[in-house]
């Protein structure tokens, strides 16, 4: 028999999935544009709803940023598995074969990257619409954005995989995901708020640490559970 080529390592498979997902999003970039428009629209609606009081708007700016990310993430996460199931591509991947852990971490990583990109796009809108500014160095904001998006994408990828084949997936995904994200959301909002309002009591690092802990928990737990989701 012919000697089969050695399969790529799990780490290499993760990179291949990230590369694949980003390539698909690049080829269908109108979807990414629509997603950014949706997030900006959400911010506009919040700004109209809160009214012209600039102090109230500024104090809520961080919450609106993360709510816009969260609402947009359900669309992005749902779409990320929709491309896998619409023509049976997931079956092709499983038979390729790919390790389920590699599929999970690859997809979670690409979702994180896309959410980070979305956050970068909408942050100037947040600052402009809600008269915000950062009083702490920007690298803190970058760190909070990366950790916050990672906290959304890990359980989001798990639940998106779970609901991908269901008819009511658009409804079920936020129903399952949002309660789980409350702790991470609180930590991300609080950390961003401290960066905007000023960290007088030196609490920022604690909230960032808490967010990192939630991320660690989500990424390890979801990585263990995802193969069962794929099996099912």
């Amino acid at each position, binding site marked *: 028999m*012919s000697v089969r080529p050695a399969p790529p390592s799990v780490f290499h*498979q993760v990179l291949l999935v990230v590369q694949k997902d980003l390539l698909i999003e690049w*080829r269908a970039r109108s979807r990414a544009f629509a997603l950014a428009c949706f997030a900006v629209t959400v911010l506009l609606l919040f700004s109209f709803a809160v009214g012209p009081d600039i102090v109230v708007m500024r104090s809520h700016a961080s919450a609106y940023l993360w709510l816009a990310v969260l609402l947009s993430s359900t669309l992005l996460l749902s779409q990320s598995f929709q491309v896998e199931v619409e023509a049976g*591509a997931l079956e*092709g991947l499983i*038979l*390729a*074969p790919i390790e389920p852990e590699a599929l999970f971490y690859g997809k979670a990583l690409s979702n994180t990257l896309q959410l980070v990109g979305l956050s970068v796009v909408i942050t100037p809108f947040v600052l402009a619409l809600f008269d915000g500014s950062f009083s702490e160095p920007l690298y803190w904001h970058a760190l909070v954005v990366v950790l916050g998006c990672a906290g959304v994408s890990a359980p989001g990828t798990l639940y998106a995989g779970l609901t991908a084949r269901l008819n009511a997936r658009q409804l079920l995904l936020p129903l399952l995901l949002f309660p789980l994200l409350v702790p991470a959301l609180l930590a991300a909002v609080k950390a961003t708020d401290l960066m905007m309002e000023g960290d007088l009591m030196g609490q920022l690092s604690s909230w960032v640490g808490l967010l990192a802990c939630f991320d660690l928990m989500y990424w390890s737990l979801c990585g263990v559970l995802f193969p069962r989701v794929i099996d099912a």
Partner: protein
Amino acid sequence: MVDLDAPVLHHFDAGCFEGLGHAIVADSQLEPHQGRRSLEQLVEVACQRRGPAEDHDGVEGMHQIRKLGDNLLAKEPLVGVHRVDWKDLGAGVYEVFGYAPGRAHAVRMGAQDRDDGVMVCAKQVSHLIGGGGGVGGHGVLRRGPQHSESAMRRGMGAPSTNLQTPVVHASGLSRRFGRRWAFARVDLTIQAGERWLLVGGNGSGKTTLLRVISTILRPSLGELSLFGQSTKGRPTTARRRLALLSHHAGLYEDLDSFDNLRILARLGGNDPREIPSLLERVGLDPTRADPLRAYSAGMRKRLQLAAMLLQKPDLVLLDEPFAALDPKGCDQVARIITELPGAVVVASHQLRRAASICDKALLLGDGVPRWRGPAADVERAWSTLHPEESA
């Protein structure tokens, strides 16, 4: 296993490969024509180009023949032979596999110490699939001792597990969705190189059976082993050796054909440089950059075939391979299926066409096996079981 008492020739006799080459060419029912070689000619030319055998070391001689053979294969394909594999068994022994439609043969050759100081290339043709007798032969590779006889015996006489282990072994295989059984009590053993036709009416469980065999679905009851290994747990090894052509494209709608195949190639550890030739082989333009969603159903089917060929599977599961194809496409697919080297299972409603490329058939009715026998008789069996349709 090896005829160690065979007479010694004092030059490398390429004619000793005659049996292998002839058997395969005869099986494929194809005649050699200008510009293309048979397996016999390939080995003969490789040996001639290598030069006088007596001047070379036994192991090196084997390596050189293999290298020359591969170079020749890269330049032009063999007549009626889909693939030639050279397996290095160590100690200067090679097992050469030639795959032809419906059949595969192996020859082991290597160097051995003799009392007169001559290295002997012995060989034995074993029919992996189908009948036919073995052909013995030998040739001298070099003078001077190089390897011990015991080492030679170890290499040449070692049993190859691939010769006996069934590709698929299903026992009491059943699958249900909720309270409805898709199929039940299916016993099936498929050997390497066998071509099975799966026949049944709509909803008879053909597709589900193929999906269970492909390990995409788990059986509700029964045992399934692929390549001698149970599919319980995570059957990654088996999945690397099989391919499923299903109703779904199994590819990404937003990507073009090349990108789709490149992803699969990289995940499978295969060489993406093969992709353009594969696309041409299935009748697709390798330069076409349209996303898959712009493809017709027939073009998707062709791309699926290319994806399947890319994996070089030992077990191919084809669910309605002729669906959505034009007559020319059907002929092309039939030819590709015929050339597949491994075991093949075809589920199709096109009985006549599918039966012509298969050896055996299994007829399912309401999810239960109703008849099994030669594929040539499947139309008759179908008519007997469904008299209302034949009327």
